[in-house]
Every structure is written in C-alpha cells, then in structure tokens.
C-alpha cells in the first residue's frame, strides 16, 4: 500500500483523531547452546492497527491482513462511536506539526549482506572460545536476533512517516559449574545500524568465561547496607530502573499525588547529577527518529544539576501536564498502542575519578556488569554480573550473586560521585512495561559512587 492510499484512508472528519500504523518485518534469529546450533529461524511478521479517539474514548483494532486496512479503520471507528457517552472526561492531544517524512537508518555494515553461515560460524566461534577456557564451563548460551522493519504511520491530521529500521541484539552467556553451584557471565551486544557490534568479541568472551569459572566457590557478601561504586553498564541500568520509569508520564498525568512528587523543580540529587533521555544518538538500539505517534525525537533533560527538569510523554500525557510532546510514544509492535517509554537513557559525565571513589571507601562494594533490574516506582532492584569487595581504599576479593536494592529517592540523593568515563552499552532483549516487551532501549553512564545501598546476601 502506498503513501497516498494510506493518507487518503486516514482523512476523516467524523473522529476526533485517527491514526494507522502498518508493519512489515523480517527476523533472523540464531541460538547456540554449547557446541550445538539450537535455532536458526527466519520469519516474517506483518500487520497493522487503527487507533481512533472519539469523545474521550480510545478504540484500537489490530490485524494481520494488510488488505483489510479499510475495513479495520471502519471497525475501530464504529467501536469508539458506540462507546460515546461512556466517559465524562474529554481527551485531547498535544498539537504537533504533522510531518511528512521518510527515514531510513544509516546502516554501516548491513547484517543482510553477511551470509547466514558466516553469522552462525562467528557465534559458534564465540561459544567454543568460552567452552575451551576451562572444563568448568559446562555450557554456553549464545543468542542473536536481527529484525528489519518497515513501519508506516499516518494520521487524520495529515502526518505520514515511513521508517526503515534495523534492530540487532543478543548476548554470549558462559555458564560454569563445579557440581555444587552454577554461575554465569554475559557479553551483551546490540546496534541499530551495524553488524560490527557482534564482531571482535573474542577477548571479551574469553575474559567473561574465565570470570564465570573464578566466581565458582567465591564468597557472597553478608547482606546489608554498604557504600557502592557501580560501573557504567550497571549505572545505565540503575538510571533506567530507578528514575527513567518514574519519568514516564502515563504514571503521573492523572495522579495528583504523583504529579506533586514529580514536579519540575523538585530536588532529586546533588548538582553533580544530570540525566537525559534521547532518541538521537546514532548507532544504538534506543535510537528512534520519530516515535510511534509520528512525533520527531528530541533530547529530554530529566534531571539538571540535581533538579527535576522534564518528563517523557505521549501526545495525550503532554497535553494533560501542559508540556511539550517529547517523542516517547512507543509501541512494541502493531498489536499495541503507543505509551510513554524510554529510548536511550543516561547519566551524563561528571568530574569525578573512579580511582578517587575507590580510595574514599573503607569497606564497600564495586559492582560490575548487569543482568537487568526492576522497579515499582519507589523501590528498585538490579542484579550485577559480579562484584569486588573494597577494603581500605583498595579493590580486593571477588564477590558473586551481587544484587542491589534501594529506595529511588534516597539513593539518587546518596549519589556522591559521578565519574568522567561515560559510555553507552547495548544489549539484547529490551525493556518491558505492561504487556509490551521487549522494547529496544539503550542506557549509559559513567562510574557512579553511591554512599549507601542495600546488597542482598546470606
């Protein structure tokens, strides 16, 4: 279906708002377990949806057969019309200038030009590197996923956006066992424009496998409160979990108490803390040019010098909070409507030095690498790949099963050092919210020094 046809179908005056999104994607996924190729899969997913707003009620219809678009628009409209009068509230959308744009990711090395056999061989090569490190490496789990998507968006205001995007991600997990316990380490990778993200990982994989063996039989810290330094990888997950989700405005816009807590100008940390969410850094999975409501991406300052400075919006939440749309309206697929989601979220560089943070700590933890995290708004938890004890200003013995927890608000205020070694890391998988998982996001951070956080343990 071409641009003009889609635009014609969305020109409607009998609705408050109408949009359609169409998706056609091809996916390649590979998984290797030990020396075995478990999955080689190529598949195709296509589908679309129509979302309509009439008198404050949203109707949403999704489908697979793109030839049914016209009929599905009608059914979304009649669905919403029949619900007229069900709600008293009126819903309006923040005004945005309708764009007419075609966006194609600037691909550096296209995975489509790499033969399938070469991809499998490369992943198997990593698996063998890990397996050959030591006989205590009992298995590996190598996953690779590559999605090429063509997404079309059009709405009743005359906007049209066509996007051609790539999403590549995965990881190499080494699993060790001594018969008594199982440990694992991970080398993640991801990109929105470059197959090279999965290349040249030999030494990282070897180091990670060695580490998985070393973790066997090491100590677990006694649970309790400690000063903690988190590495850039974990710092990114921390800010995503601890603060990013709180900034998503669907959680705020209709809750007066939450709006008070998350009011612009409220102090969240010391002046060394600067946090952003953006869709415009090339090369990362969280990079988007336009969101799924056709809103151009823009960099949003969430915390500026310790003070709350912005929120993440869809058009609906932006107007409710009397703020500008930010380009954060994202949907994981055609089966879901857009909701406020993060893109690339990061703690900006500070002036601190990692080695000074270490020197400052008498007895604490250096937590490294990440297996992800979770939040309920106030409390968060995230799981480090491993850690080291810090004793009298020196990094000492290795620690396994390091999991950090805390209160978001207290912990942000307990950030006493922000390093100058900012990096963004990508990984496979993605972020989950409600049923929408996995949404590609990225995060970044320098080393961050937190004066106290809870570490789980025996």
């Amino acid at each position, binding site marked *: 279906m071409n641009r003009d046809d889609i635009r014609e179908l969305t020109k409607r005056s009998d609705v408050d708002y109408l949009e359609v999104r169409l998706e056609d994607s091809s996916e390649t*996924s590979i998984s290797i377990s*030990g020396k*075995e*190729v*478990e*999955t*080689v*899969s*190529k*598949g*195709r*997913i*296509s589908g679309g949806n129509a979302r309509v707003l009439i008198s404050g*009620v*949203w*109707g*949403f*219809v*999704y*489908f*697979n057969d793109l030839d049914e678009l016209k009929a599905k628009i009608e*059914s979304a409209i009649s669905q919403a019309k029949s*619900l007229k009068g*069900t709600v008293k509230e009126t819903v309006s959308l923040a005004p945005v200038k309708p764009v007419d744009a075609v966006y194609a990711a600037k691909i550096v090395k296209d995975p489509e030009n790499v033969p*399938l*056999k070469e991809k499998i061989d490369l992943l198997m090569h990593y698996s063998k590197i890990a397996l050959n490190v030591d006989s205590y490496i009992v*298995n590996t789990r190598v996953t690779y996923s590559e999605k090429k998507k063509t997404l079309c968006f059009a709405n009743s205001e005359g906007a049209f956006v066509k996007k051609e995007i790539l999403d590549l991600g995965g990881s190499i997990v080494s699993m060790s*066992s001594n018969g008594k*316990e*199982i440990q*694992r380490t991970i080398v993640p990778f991801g990109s929105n424009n470059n197959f090279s993200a999965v290349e040249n990982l030999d030494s990282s994989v070897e180091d990670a496998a060695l580490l998985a063996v070393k973790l066997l039989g090491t100590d677990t810290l006694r*649970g*309790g*409160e400690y000063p903690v330094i988190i590495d850039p990888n974990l710092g990114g997950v921390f800010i995503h979990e601890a603060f990013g989700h709180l900034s998503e405005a*669907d959680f705020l816009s209709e*809750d007066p108490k939450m709006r008070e*807590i998350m009011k612009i100008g409220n102090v969240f940390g010391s002046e060394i803390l600067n946090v952003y969410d953006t869709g415009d850094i090339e090369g990362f999975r969280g990079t988007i040019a336009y969101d799924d409501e056709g809103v151009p991406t823009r960099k949003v300052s969430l915390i500026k010098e310790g003070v709350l400075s912005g929120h993440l919006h869809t058009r609906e939440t932006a107007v409710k909070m009397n703020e500008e749309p930010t380009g954060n309206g994202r949907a994981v697929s055609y*089966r*879901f409507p857009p909701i406020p989601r993060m893109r690339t979220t990061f703690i900006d560089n500070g002036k601190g030095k990692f080695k000074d943070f270490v020197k400052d700590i008498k007895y604490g933890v250096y937590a490294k690498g990440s*297996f*992800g*995290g*979770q939040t*309920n*708004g*106030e*409390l*968060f*938890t*995230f*799981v480090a790949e491993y850690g080291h004890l810090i004793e009298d200003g020196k990094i000492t013995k290795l620690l396994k*099963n390091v*999991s950090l*927890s805390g*209160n978001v608000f207290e912990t942000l205020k307990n950030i006493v050092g922000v390093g100058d070694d900012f990096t963004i890391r990508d990984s496979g998988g993605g972020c989950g919210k409600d049923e929408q998982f996995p949404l590609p996001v990225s995060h970044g951070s320098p080393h961050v020094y937190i004066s*106290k956080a*809870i*570490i*789980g*343990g025996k």
Partner: protein
Amino acid sequence: MEDKFLRILNEKNVSGELMQIQSYRLVVNFEHNRFKGIEEGETSGIAVRVKKDGKFGFSFSTDVTDIERVINRALENAKFSQEAIFDFARNKDVPEVFCFDDEIVNMSRDEIINQGKEAIEYITSLKSGIQAFFSMSKNILEEKIITTSDFSGGFKKSVASAQMGGIFNEEGNFLWVYGSLARSSKNLLNIDMLKDKLKKNLEGAERNVKINSGLYPVIFTPYSSEYLLLPFAIAINGRNVIKGTSVLKDKLNETIFSKNLTIVNDPLMPYAISTAPFDDEGIPSRRKEIISQGKLLNYLTDLYSAKKLNLEPGNASRSLSTLPSPSPSNIVIENGTEKLSDMLKVKKGIIIESLMGVQMGNVSGGEVMGNIDLGYLVENGEIIGRIKDAMISINIVDALKDVVLSEENAWTTGIVSPYILIPSAPISTKL
C-alpha cells in the same frame, strides 16, 4: 493448506510439521479510576519445521497464504541447524480436556465494561486517594498441528482474564496492590478472589514497620509461591539437565526436598490456563509428578530432551516465532496439614506477597534473590505492618529441604499452591 503442506513435503521427500495458530482478543481497560478504552484484534500465523538430511529447519510467517515460501526458508535453514535426533509426532489418541467455554465467547463488551465499573468502585472504596486500575480480556485461540508422520490434531481454547489493583503513592511511601486471574471457563473467573486479595493487601500495608537484617521464618502465599517455582522450572527443564546447567541434574529418584513437598505438572486440569489435549509438538498431554514427597521423579521434556534423557516427551511449549522447548503447564503444589492460622503464629516472621528482580538473578543457580516489593511482618499470628527496603536471598536447593505447607490453598492463574513456610531465610535491610 494442510493438503498443500503435505503435498509439497511429499514431493521434496522430507518430513515435517506444520503448526497453525489463530487468535482473537478483546481487552477492556480502566486506568486512573476511569474507563480508558478497548483494544481488539486478530492474529494468525504458520510455523514449519522440516527434517532434511538429518537436520532440522524452521521458519514462520503471519501470512498464512505464504506456506510455500515458509517451507523453502525452513529447508534452507536446515543446512545449519541442530541434528535431528527425533521424529515428529505420530498419530496417537489424545485425551479429552476442558479448555473451551461458550460463555467466554458470548461475553459482551458492555458486560465487561460493567464489571470494570464495579471493580473500580470497589477498589476506590477501600482507600481514599487510591488510583484504581482494571482490565479484563477475552481470548479465543485455535491451534492445529499436523505432521508427515500422520499426526493431525487441533483444539479451540477460550481464556478470560482479569487484572485489577490500585496505586497509592505519597511522598516517602509508594504502595501497589495487584492481582490477576485467568481461566478457560467464565464461571471460574472469580473476581471476588481478587477483591479479597486487594483488601487484605491494603490492610496489611496500613502502616510500615522496620526490621533488622537477619534470619526470619518466611511465608510464601499461593500468589508468591511462583517465585520459588521460577528457579525450579529452570532446574527441571530437560534441556538444562542435558547441558549441565540444572541444579537438579543427576538427582532423579533422589529425595532432594522436604517430604512435605509434592509438585505435579498437570496439563489436564479442567479449565486451567495451560490446559490442552496435546503439547506444542503434538504429544498427548498427561499428568506428570515431578516431586513426590520430596523425591525427584521426572523432568519436563520436549521431543529433543526426551530422546537424550530417555524419558517420555510431552511438555513442549512455543510461540509462533520460537522453537519448542520444555516448559511447565499448570503446576499443582499439594497441600500440607498445617492450619494457616497456626503457621502464622511464628514469633517474628515475614509474609511475602511480591518480589522484584528475581528473574534477573541467578535463577539457573537456584537463587531466589529479590527486593520485597510487598511483604509484612507477622508476630504471633498478627500482621504488624509492611516491611520495606528489604531483600530476601535463598537458594531452593537448600530452602526447600525444610518447608511446612498449609492445608489451605488457592488456585491462582497457573498455579495451585498452599502457603509455604521456610523456617529460616536471610533478609537484608538498610541500617
């Protein structure tokens, strides 16, 4: 379609399996105390596995007319894939199961909206200032599998699900209470059970109390026992057993857990969420006792791991775009003999309602490590208040060696479970 599939494979002289899925879904959403809107949709798709030159190939598409291309892609992929050590499902009798209810099909949109209004009214009446949410969905699923080894089966399934809860946030104190339920029969979708849970959760969290780090008796409820089952499901997955990444590897027929513990995987349970006449590889469903009075009797297997481990297959699960792998169906943890009221008479214990971050932790290693999202301090049978800023860290290999089970139980979405008391578990808190 099926004829075309069989004809093409016959011409190419390869064996294969075709899965067809069709689903319909209607969701009604209430957020922030009000009706928000509805979502409705249909999806379909086909997935093909072929066996060529002793190797498997796989492909899928949401375009069901694309069968020829899907077969060809699967054949191309077969060059690179796993060695085919098993054959696709053969024609066998499948059991009769109950997983479809016309009353779910007939549920009207307006009827669901009215349920939602009533639920929102109820939740907002429990606590002033609470932000209530509710969503209810009806799902109709059709699955068909055919193989070149003469298996041909299909079933229709209906699922009604409800989730509801409330958010009460104020400076320095956030509280989420939440419950969800799904059934294949409308009459069994007991919204009152969720209402009761929310009410009790709010009462328990009425005030916050502080505890110190240390060892505590911990009680998992029928809702939170799922956190214990998370590492358990990984440990009994036949594929992990083969790879040496199961903490229960080489433990078959050994008594590994408390004698009080019996755990059954039951795909035949009437009107439960995972009930089906056959698994996602076309193997007839059957009840499997995994743990019997503490003894490990079986692992969960798909065709591949069953062959390698010399066990019966039948526990394969998959989505359209993924290959089958072993996965739990409906899980039943059998009741104990202790009265819940007696169980709660601990001197100083913790009740866990929900945890955060467990699935990111070392679940392969048997760890249940997470932040206590909602949990209470209980003293001599009385709930004292909510504990916050606390983490639990246990390993099922040790923790399930000594458990006490209540005679009361509940059927949550995919699990039937009693209350489970672990007499001593480490809890870490802030100073």
